[in-house]
């Protein structure tokens, strides 16, 4: 919500356009709900669709390895869906009406990097890795199975590690300072 779009007469709050603000807030609430639902629908459509196409399809060209690969893709989608739902729920529950100390503790926990969420991301990436490896295992032409696996890993691991490192760097710049400040405040309050 861009605050600059609303004109307040701060020195004369009775003239403030509360209706405009409320309309914008309602629009924002509906927009967030719509985005959240859309993302969930994508997963709810992709998961059964991929399950149908890659695991349970009667297509004779799908062998066991293809089906197994599809299963791992679907599992990784399920884990990503869990992460998304967890994130949405957590950010929906930010409550500014809590006592300052409790709110700061919650903020510090929310912006912690080593949480179950990171483990879930790693799990989703590992499941995806297995899916990708099984898929390309059949498509690559090298004779040795190990070389084929290593070939896939040589591409997948650096790409995913780079993505993870970018994510960690974004956290360090954007979220870690907030977490550090929130922890400093909690510490001061406990003194």
């Amino acid at each position, binding site marked *: *919500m861009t605050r600059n779009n609303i004109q307040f007469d701060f020195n004369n709050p009775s003239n*403030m356009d509360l209706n405009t603000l*409320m309309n914008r807030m309602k629009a924002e609430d509906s927009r967030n709900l719509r985005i959240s639902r859309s993302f969930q629908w994508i997963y709810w459509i992709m998961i059964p669709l991929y399950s149908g196409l890659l695991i349970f399809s009667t297509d004779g060209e799908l062998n066991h390895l293809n089906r197994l690969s599809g299963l791992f893709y679907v599992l990784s989608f399920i884990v990503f869906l869990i992460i998304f739902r967890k994130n949405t729920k957590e950010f929906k529950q930010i409550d*500014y009406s*809590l*006592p*300052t*100390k409790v709110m700061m503790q919650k903020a510090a926990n929310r912006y912690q990097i080593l949480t179950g969420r990171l483990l879930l991301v790693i799990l989703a990436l590992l499941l995806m890795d297995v899916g990708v490896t099984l898929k390309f295992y059949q498509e690559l032409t090298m004779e040795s199975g190990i070389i084929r696996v290593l070939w896939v890993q040589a591409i997948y691991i650096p790409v995913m590690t780079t993505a993870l490192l970018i994510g960690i760097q974004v956290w360090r710049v954007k979220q870690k300072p907030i977490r550090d400040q929130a922890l400093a*405040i909690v510490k*001061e309050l406990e003194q």
Partner: protein
Amino acid sequence: MANKEEQFKTIVTENSERIKRICSYYAPDPDEQKDIYQDVLINIWKSLDNFRGEAALSTWIYRIAVNTSLSYMGKSYKKMKLNVGTDTLNLNSLIQDSGYEEKLMEEEQLNRLQIELNQLSVIDKALISLQLEGLSIKEIADIIGITEPNVKVKIHRIKETLRTQLKGGDHDKE
């Protein structure tokens, strides 16, 4: 939803001065004050569904106003200023010296107080802003989330420091 809108309008109308004062403590710049004020209103709207009446409405409003003001500063917590003026309510409660109240009306003394207030930590500034609102120790404890004795000790310590500094002492600054 219509009920929520009515409730929101009533709360904002009845508490606009209170919210405005809290915003003005934390932001010297009128534009920033407006931004914080709007953020407070947005957070009141968002928190309205969670209001169960367990805390007094005024406590609830102060929590949102203080938490929003603190969060507004983001990474710049330490740069946060606490602004007072001759029109600030309960200014004399900081010094607890009847003779000093008149001196505070002098621009130079007020500037000194302003400088000293800005040396305080973020939480001390928040405590002082609530003290300036004339809230009781219990209310401040409910808003900040610490015990009453802890609030009492902290406020006493802040006042001691301010008094010493303003009378020319040399307490260590943070």
